[in-house]
């Protein structure tokens, strides 16, 4: 019986092994070598360098800058985007709202739109002279801001874009979570005299906890891998203020062919994401225990 089970699992396991485990292990090994363009041409020109890549990485200012930028992005846009998703979900779940289908569609639309197209449109919105955003702000008396050209504003601009782009996905999951909360709980609470705020904090939030954990972890993992937005909008500039870890890894690996070095970056990122996920799971378990 057990044999048969393994037999049925074999194709899937083989695929996972060949296309997932082997590359991951290979990348891990490569991160301890100086594999680069010299080595692609002639395998005798690469050698085992131990922790050299990691040492270089930790000594490199650009890596730390990319790391700080990535954390800035995750810390700023993670909670904000989850809050906005939840807010939108609550609004759309309210009995007072009409045309729910249309609103859901509209909010979800950015998620399924190609990022490249979105980024190009947003570049026009952010344009310092002719952009819609500065035009709108000019009515409030705000001076022209060079959104993508100013090192202090570039990252907030990327954050705004990616929140707008992504909140619809989490919103849909929150709506599903909200619909799973039994109506009786609210009725009972109302009879007991709980006001709207109390009903939200005492019923909605606790009942949404599993959904929230899922969304937090998925969002964090996704946001740590920030890549396409800066890649298309700013190429990491100005003054490297939007350079993310993954963008840095991509540039080192596929533009300059420093595969060993870039594998080392990948594993540092892996450790960071793993730590973040474990911390969140530990925190949630402690709270529910």
């Amino acid at each position, binding site marked *: 019986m057990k044999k048969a089970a393994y037999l049925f699992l074999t194709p899937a396991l083989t695929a996972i092994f060949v296309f997932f485990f082997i590359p991951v292990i290979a990348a891990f090994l490569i991160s301890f070598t100086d594999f680069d*363009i010299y080595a692609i041409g002639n395998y005798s020109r690469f050698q085992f360098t131990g922790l050299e890549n990691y040492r270089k990485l930790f000594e490199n200012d650009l890596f730390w800058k990319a790391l700080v930028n990535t954390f800035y992005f995750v810390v700023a846009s993670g909670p904000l985007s989850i809050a906005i998703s939840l807010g939108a979900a609550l609004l759309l779940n309210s009995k007072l709202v009409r045309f729910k289908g249309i609103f859901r569609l509209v909010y979800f639309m950015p998620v399924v739109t190609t990022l490249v197209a979105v980024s190009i449109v947003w570049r026009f919105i952010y344009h310092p002279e002719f952009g819609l955003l500065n035009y709108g702000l000019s009515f409030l008396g705000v001076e022209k801001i060079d959104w993508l050209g100013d090192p202090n504003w570039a990252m907030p601009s990327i954050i705004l874009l990616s929140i707008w782009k992504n909140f619809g996905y989490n919103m849909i999951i929150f709506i599903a979570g909200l619909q799973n909360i039994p109506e009786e709980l609210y009725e009972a609470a109302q009879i007991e005299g709980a006001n709207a705020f109390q009903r939200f904090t005492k019923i909605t939030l606790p009942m949404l906890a599993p959904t929230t954990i899922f969304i937090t972890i998925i969002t964090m993992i996704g946001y740590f891998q920030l890549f396409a937005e800066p890649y298309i909008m700013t190429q990491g500039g100005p003054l*490297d203020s939007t350079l993310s870890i993954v963008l840095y890894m991509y540039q080192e690996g596929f533009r*300059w*062919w420093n595969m060993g070095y870039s594998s080392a970056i990948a594993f540092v990122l892996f450790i960071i994401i793993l730590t973040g996920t474990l911390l969140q799971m530990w925190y949630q378990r402690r709270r529910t225990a």
Partner: protein
Amino acid sequence: MNSWREQGNLRLRLVLFIGLFLFPFLFIYYGCKGEEKGVTEITFWGMGAEGEKIQALLPEFYRRHPEIKVRVQMVPWTAAQEKLISAFVADNTPDLCQLGNTWVPQFVLLDALEPLEGYISKSAVVKQSNYFKGIWNTNEVGGKIYGIPWYIDTRLMYYRKDIFKKAGYELPPKTWDELLDLSRKIVKLQNDPNKYAIYLPTNEWAPFIIFGIQNGSDLLKNNWTYGNFSGDKFLEAFDFLMKFHKERLSPLGVSQVTNVYQAFEEGYFSIYISGPWNIPDMKKKMNDSTGEKWGTAPLPGKNGYPGASLAGGASLVMFKQSKKKEAAWKFIEFLSEKGTQLAFFGETNNLPAVVSAWDEPGFKKDPFIPAFYEQFQNVVATPKIPEWEQIVSAKLQQYAEYAARGKMTAKEAMQNLDREVNIILEKRRRLLGK
């Protein structure tokens, strides 16, 4: 009755299933068989628009060489290098392709390219004397020739004639001092904080390297194993260019200029150092194809005029892994003929590499072309090492931006640049040391 129908159904399904399963293999079989008897099929990878436009040249080639068939594959420029390297690793390179001439050293290093001396010495068409010296030189690595120039480019000055005249310059500047003086005059004349004289964006490394070379810098020292950007000569040139940013003669950011042609037309800047690919769009945007309001001119120089510029363009290369080199070489020869070169210019506006093509009256008629001819007399190659792209487009641009925004002095920026360049070149030093 019922079971018979079911059985028949089952059989039909089985046949269908097997048929569908085998169907793709038919294609693979015929795909591999593809070549007709006596016809050699060669694969050519063309990049960007060239990959499309080259089709127009093929009928003439087939007329003369019915025994060869060319399969053209289009590859976008942005993905070209990645695709070529992947193809090389997978032992799946085309027979020949076009290669940006600054990429040649990288592929020589991979040992992917076929040296061409043997073919050139036997050829009646391809001769070194047919080409501009600086351009030919870019294809030579370690004393061997790996590419034949196909079309060429270099950077020179696009300028606003009308604005220059108002600023008191009937002729474009010929020296660095004149360039600076003119830029100051233009800004004064325009008297508008939103208008500048020259566009020197920090995300274009070429002008920085050009001015460094003009000042006699060797860019990298000790057989290209150490950076020499903080050396006196490069530093002086870099400092000179930084003046344009400090005195607000050049716009600081890159994001203000979403369309250079528009900005040029509006007088946002009056000087732009760039290549021939801009001519068609400039003509359109300026609504002037006779050179009334704008023109092209060779670069001003530090020691003599015209000042040096970069030898750019694309070369035709053959891959070592190819089994059809004789046929591929015939195609290269065809593309290197004067007539083909002019026809290709007509299709793409890419400047012909063969010098004799430049004498053609129809070609010289364009008022923006002669300046390029003059500039090509003084073009030089950048250091031929695979790390060059990374050094300039990642590091030099990064530190140029830091200096332009005043976060570092020119000297600090160049010292930091050298430090990083030396790290990048570490492996090269080690391999050469062996």
